[in-house]
């Protein structure tokens, strides 16, 4: 059991209290879960722009020349094909193909990288990289000094332009650059976890409070807690580490094969290839309820009277007005099939569906893809 006194606080903790946020433990941190209410905040991100305190996540700076370092072998991302100024999502796997963490890798310049990892796994990831990197490298954990804000929503570019000028608006999905804000040159990437057009801003802790307040002084921008962050990502079918994916689950089981580059070698590859050949013991499916009832973590998934798996994430979807979720099942089950999600006396009728649940997000808009 986590006690509040053992929890870490972000540099914005006082701001959250001032805003009347409900605070709760997440990944070892005491984080804002909601301000005005999860549904209102969720809808605000879908319709305007929301600001998230993401200072709990970890960032590592790495200098490693791929010609002599094995960094590329430690991740599923093909680093060798990345241009400078691009970022990619992928995994660090263990020898069994299980996911040590999902991460975002930024290529700053030849041989220079920023790695962004989950809060709860940050220290473990750092130790893993330190222990497994070979060849000359320089690895620094800058999590304690570097803050992160996510600005997400259809009006996020307009709101950010007030502070950052117009140059950053050229950024395409999954690219980044250095831009001047409040006298600092900071990384802004066009990435996010909501499905909306949005940006992630990496600002030194000393100035993160000012950045937070400046952005919130714009009427189009409101603070958003982790509660809405969860419903937003679930509507997109994005996985949450520790809940939908973990060390015992492979990316293939999680339906995340597209983040694996088979043309290269990486830790865990043989196991994944064997899984592809033998068939998966379980696979991720997505489902929507026929009512406002929400499936929850660990509810059983029943198909034709048989228990075939469990819900990993479930919630009410503010955009769709029904319960939605994802979970692992042992069977191959077709889209449109009827299932029941149950726990004790609760039985929710649902159908297997496709992701994303929410299809109007503008995250990739303006891109030529």
């Amino acid at each position, binding site marked *: 059991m986590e006690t509040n006194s053992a929890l870490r606080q972000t540099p914005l903790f006082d701001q959250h209290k001032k805003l009347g946020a409900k605070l709760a433990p997440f990944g070892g941190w005491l984080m804002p879960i909601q301000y005005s*209410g*999860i549904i209102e905040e969720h809808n605000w991100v879908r319709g305007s722009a929301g600001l998230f305190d993401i200072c709990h996540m970890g960032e590592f700076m790495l200098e490693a020349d791929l010609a002599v370092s094995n960094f590329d072998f430690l991740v599923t991302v093909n680093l060798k094909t990345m241009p400078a100024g691009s970022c990619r999502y992928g995994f660090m796997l263990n020898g069994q193909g299980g996911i040590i963490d999902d991460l975002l890798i930024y290529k700053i310049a030849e041989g220079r990288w920023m790695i962004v990892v989950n809060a709860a796994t940050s220290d473990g990831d750092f130790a893993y990289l330190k222990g497994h990197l070979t060849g000359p490298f320089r690895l620094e954990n800058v999590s304690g000094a570097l803050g992160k804000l996510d600005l997400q929503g259809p009006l996020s570019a307009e709101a950010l332009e007030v502070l950052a000028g117009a140059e950053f608006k050229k950024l395409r999905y999954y690219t980044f650059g250095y831009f001047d804000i409040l006298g600092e040159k900071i990384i802004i990437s066009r990435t996010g976890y909501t499905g909306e057009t949005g940006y992630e801003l990496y600002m030194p802790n000393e100035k993160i409070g000012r950045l937070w307040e400046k952005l919130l002084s714009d009427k189009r921008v409101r603070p958003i807690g982790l509660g809405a962050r969860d419903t937003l990502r679930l509507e997109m079918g994005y996985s949450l580490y520790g809940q939908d994916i973990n060390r015992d689950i492979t990316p293939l089981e999680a339906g995340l094969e597209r983040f694996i580059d088979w043309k290269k070698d990486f830790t865990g590859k043989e196991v994944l290839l064997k899984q592809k050949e033998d068939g998966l013991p379980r696979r991720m499916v997505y489902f929507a309820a026929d009512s406002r009832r*929400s499936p*929850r973590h660990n509810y059983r998934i029943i198909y034709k009277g048989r228990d075939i798996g469990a819900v990993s994430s479930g*919630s*009410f979807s503010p955009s769709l007005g029904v319960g939605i979720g994802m979970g692992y099942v042992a069977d191959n089950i077709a889209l449109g099939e009827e299932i029941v999600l149950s726990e004790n006396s*609760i039985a929710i009728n649902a159908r297997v569906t496709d992701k994303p649940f929410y299809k109007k997000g503008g995250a990739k808009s303006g891109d030529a893809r």
Partner: protein
Amino acid sequence: MNIPDNLLYTKDHEWAKLEGDKATMGITDFAQHSLGDITFIDLPKPSVKVKQAEWCATVESVKAASDVYAPFSGEILEVNTELNSHPELANKSPYESGWFAVIKISEASEKDKLMSPAKYKEYIEGLSK
């Protein structure tokens, strides 16, 4: 926290309004506030018999599903069907348009197990310490 003077309260944060041998019930302002946005309410069926402090409804919020317990034993006379399409009424107006059900009370003495407004206020102040 809004705690109307004319109601009785349970330690599970239900309220009851006594009118003769009937009690209207719902969840308190404290309950709706801690649950957050309510997205679904599973109400008992009319004519069902409920028992004091036992299950009578389930409230789902974005974050969790929680049981609601009957403040009195008796028979369900009526339920607030408006909550089927507008569960958020329990957030906006927990003591008025967000009421859950009317119970025909079978044990009037059960009243003694409920808290007065003053007692309930003291009780929730103790919880937030």
